[in-house]
């Protein structure tokens, strides 16, 4: 089962290596990983999506790392989950309009354009990104990169769909 976990760490050399090494050491798979500073000086947040049969042991092992300050699992119903993706879609001038229209439906931004391709930046929850991929596949996806999932606990009861509708 896939879990999204936030790990707040001290921003010290080797922390990311320790965290990721612990996963391989204990036989857990990491699907995605996003790291960046928080608003607090000296603290970074690592957001991981991983495969684990049960999370308790993994969380405890994370807590054993001296530089780990806080570990939290996100539940999709109580968290805002987001990811940024760049996707290069094959299209000639004839199909470009259709690809662009499809992208617009997902709120995707065109960030690069060439004779035979168009590159979109699209951000949102993982289901949105997957739907984008599904709809673009018929055109031919040439290249694709994802930032890794990030998440934040919600303070309201709004459904993610409602919120993303609001933002567009």
């Amino acid at each position: 089962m896939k879990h999204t976990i936030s790990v707040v760490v001290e921003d010290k050399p080797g922390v990311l290596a320790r965290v990721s090494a612990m996963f391989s050491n204990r036989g857990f798979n990491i699907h995605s990983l996003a790291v960046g500073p928080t608003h607090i000086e000296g603290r970074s947040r690592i957001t991981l999506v991983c495969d684990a049969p049960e999370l308790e042991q993994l969380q405890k092992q994370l807590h054993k790392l001296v530089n780990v300050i806080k570990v939290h699992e996100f539940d999709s119903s109580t968290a805002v989950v987001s990811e940024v993706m760049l996707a290069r879609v094959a299209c000639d001038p004839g199909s470009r309009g259709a690809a662009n229209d499809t992208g617009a439906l997902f709120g995707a931004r065109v960030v690069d354009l060439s004779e035979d391709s168009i590159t979109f930046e699209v951000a949102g929850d993982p289901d949105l990104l997957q739907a984008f991929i599904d709809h673009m596949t018929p055109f031919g996806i040439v290249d694709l990169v994802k930032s890794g999932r990030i998440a934040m606990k919600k303070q309201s009861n709004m459904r993610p769909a409602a919120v993303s509708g609001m933002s567009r």
Partner: protein
Amino acid sequence: MSNQNFTGSKSLLRSLEHEGVEVIFGVPGGAILPAYDPLLDSPIRHVLARHEQGAGHMAEGYAMATGRVGVTWATSGPGATNLITPLQNAMMDSTPLVAITGQVASTAIGSDAFQEAYTTGLAMHCTKHAYLVKDADDIPDIVHEAFHLAATGRPGPVLIDIPKDVLNQETSWRKPTLAGLPGYRPTYEGHPKQIKAAFEMIEAAERPVLYVGGGVIAAGASEELLKFAEQMNIPVTTTLMARGAFPDNHPLALGMPGMHGVYAATTAIQRCDTLIAVGARFDDRVTGKVSAFAPEAKIVHVDVDPAEIGKIHKPDVPVVGDAKAVLESLNERARKLRSEKAAPERRYWFGLIGGWKKNKPLHYDQLEEGPVKVQHFIERLHALTKGNAIVTAGVGQHQMWASQFWGFSRPRSWINSGGLGTMGFALPAAVGAKAAHPDETVIALDGDGCFQMTCQEMITAAVEDIPVKIVVFNNGGFGMVKQWQNLFYGGRLSASEMPIEVPDYPALAEAMGCVGLRVTHPSDVDVAIEKALSIDDRPVLIEVVVDPEEMCFPMVPAGGSNDDVITGPEDLP
């Protein structure tokens, strides 16, 4: 304080003195050289080992004999890589250790410089934490943190890697703080709700048994354990790492459970209705096949490391806390209860246990004409020292026999490599223990296979005036490997035999500055032991030529159920 010549090296020594370090076990080399100079002016003793692995195990022996943090240091590259085995050993057995390594200059890191290794990376999996010091001004805080991490919570090894230029850097020393550990908060006191639940479960038990691990020794909780066992009238099993945590001559003592455990101890766990694990981690050598382990038992699991709880076996009542603190809380409840009603007699339960003890005792046959059996030698050694010694062991048959046949009476008198199973541990660990307790008799019990891995540390013992006793049980090979090949590989002995005559152990001992004795016949045993015990100015080695065919029993084959104990050769098909 700041002066022109005050360097990172001096700050390091000052910091170690501040932590109360009395001895460092080490080997010099290029990158650690700056630290060796102020060492000449420091009250800290340096024991010069003949290999960094030996230095590391010495520091472990010191730590295990005292409960204090052991300190080892070495140079960069090979010095550091040679320390990896002791670090992992200390990690597995929760031994408080601080290892300091020199590193190539900061400017050369990452350039594949001479004697460069990525030490903090190598140590990542085998330490509680590893530091790379980038600024000499950080040395006081880092050293202080390292000692704190090593000794608190679940103890373990911590590494500090210091580049040579940082050791030479001009700096100043100030009183350190622990401000830098925002995420490290070990839990000592058990949660009152969990303690209450645990106590109620234990009080309601009809066939309880205590499963005591090394955490009880680490926590210094032997007295609390004794009180608890007596107040509740509960039999006690002590794992390999906990031998000595509970006196073996106590009526409630069952001895060691598990793969080579005493039948009554292993079986009491199998048949108990409530298993109380304290500072134990459900190691595979104890549990055998986990799904068949203690099948009738409700489980209380007390451990200072929350990650141990539920890792192997999900307990009914988990208690995160230090063994001493939790046993104290349980004792308080027991005391109140006992003022109202007496402890249960458990006649049925003790009847069963008594039957197992009587019908399936540890046994061996020592024929008068020989060959000498290891078990017999250990029993004689125990008798002639009155058990008044610190005993270390290597890994294998002799280790199991030592654990089985040495009657332990106090904690920290048994020092062995339990989790990692590091051959070659016995001698350097004995040197470390003896350095800590010069007035005690310290005996390394070793096999010939193990001994050959670190035997050069006899030189350290001789030259550094650390007169340990060394017993090498020579069965001409790797006894436990041979036993497995005999039992599970159709007797096809592959690379497990070595010539019993080479090396000439007493001659080797003499060459390395020790006294060398040899025992080949049962009638020599007492004479040799008495002679060894009478020599106090030099290390003494006794080679005991033993039965190469003897197998270690009881035995539960690896992965098998603890219900299927082979108690002796008579049980073999």
